[in-house]
C-alpha cells in the first residue's frame, strides 16, 4: 500500500507541475507529503508560485489564482486515475477572460486525450463557445425546471431573459 501511494503521489505531482504551468503560463508549483515520516500518515501540501511572484502561503493567492490552482490539482488527479465523469459547476466564475481562455484550452485538451465526459455549468460566453454541445435549463413555469437543447445564439437569449 505504501509503495502504491508513493507511486500515485509521484504521478500526481508530475502532472500537477505541468498543468499549473500551462494554466498560469509559467510559474512553478509542487506537491509535498508533510507532517509525518510515513507516507500513509502524511498530509498533502500544495505549493504554488504564480509567474514572477515569491512563494507564499496559499491563502494569500487571489480568488482567481486559487481557483486555477485547484483546477490544476483536480485535473492532475484525473491524469493518474481517469474518472468516467467530471462535473464543474461555475468553476470559471472567479476567472478573468484571459484565464477563462486558458481554462477552456486545457478542458478541450483533456476531452481529446481522455475518455472522460464533462458536464460544465457556466454563465461565461467564452466557456459556452468552447463546448461541444449546450443544454439550457429554463423555468417556463415558475419553480418547475425543464431541459432543452440549445445552440450558442439560443443560450445567449436564455441568459438575457
Amino acid at each position, binding site marked *: 500500500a505504501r509503495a*502504491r501511494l508513493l*507511486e*500515485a503521489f509521484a*504521478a*500526481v505531482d508530475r502532472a500537477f507541475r505541468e498543468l499549473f504551468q500551462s494554466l498560469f503560463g509559467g510559474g512553478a508549483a509542487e506537491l509535498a507529503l508533510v507532517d509525518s515520516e510515513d507516507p500513509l500518515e*502524511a*498530509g*498533502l*501540501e*500544495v505549493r504554488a508560485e504564480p509567474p514572477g511572484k515569491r512563494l507564499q502561503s496559499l*491563502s494569500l493567492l487571489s480568488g482567481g489564482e*486559487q*481557483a486555477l*490552482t*485547484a483546477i490544476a*490539482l*483536480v485535473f492532475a*488527479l*484525473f491524469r493518474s*486515475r*481517469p*474518472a*468516467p*465523469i467530471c*462535473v*464543474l*459547476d461555475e*468553476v470559471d466564475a*472567479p476567472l478573468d477572460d484571459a484565464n477563462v481562455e486558458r481554462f477552456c484550452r486545457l478542458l*478541450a485538451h483533456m*476531452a481529446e486525450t481522455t*475518455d*472522460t*465526459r*464533462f*458536464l*460544465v*455549468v*457556466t*454563465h461565461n460566453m467564452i466557456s*459556452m463557445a*468552447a463546448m*461541444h*454541445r*449546450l*443544454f439550457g*435549463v*429554463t*423555468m417556463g*413555469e*415558475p*419553480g*418547475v*425546471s*425543464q*431541459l432543452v437543447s*440549445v445552440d450558442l445564439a439560443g*443560450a445567449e437569449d*436564455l441568459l438575457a*431573459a
Partner: protein
Amino acid sequence: MQFERLRLVGFKSFVEPTELVILPGLTGIVGPNGCGKSNLLEALRWVMGESSARALRGGSPASGGGMEDVIFAGTATRPARSFAEVTLTLDNRARRAPAAFNGEDRLEVTRRIERGSGSDYRINARDVRQRDVQMLFADAATGAQSPALVSQGRVAAIIAARPDERRQLLEDAA
C-alpha cells in the same frame, strides 16, 4: 464503464420526467439564476449514493431538513410530490462492473426516496444496498466523493483544506 443517460422525476425542481443524454467530450449547461442547473448536477451525485443531505444543500435535521429536501416541495401553483427518483444508465460493454452485474451490456442504477420511508436502490431492477452502489462507482474511479465532482463555489475549497484532509484525494487516486 461510460455514463450514457440521466433520468429524473420529482427531484428538486425537476418535477416532470427529464432526460439528460451524456455524450463524449464537453457538454455545457446554461440558464438564468435559480433555474435548476446545480439541481441537475446534484441528481447525479445523489444517484451515486450521496449519504449527506448537506452536500446536496438540504437542511440539517435540527432545522427540520434532511434527505427528503430533494423531493419536489411544490410551487405557488403545484402541490408537493411524495417521491423522487433518478436513474443513471451506464455502458458496461467493457465489462468492468462487479461480478454480480458484469454479464450485462447496460446497467441501470436507480435511487428512489419516498416521504417517510427513506431511500431504495436498484441495479437493473434488482434491489441492492447503498454500499453496493457506492462500491460500484468507487471501483470505477468515481462516485459521490469523487474530487472530479466540483460543486458550485467549492472549487477553492480544495486549496483551503488542511493537508490531512487533502490526503484523501491522493488515496482515491492511488
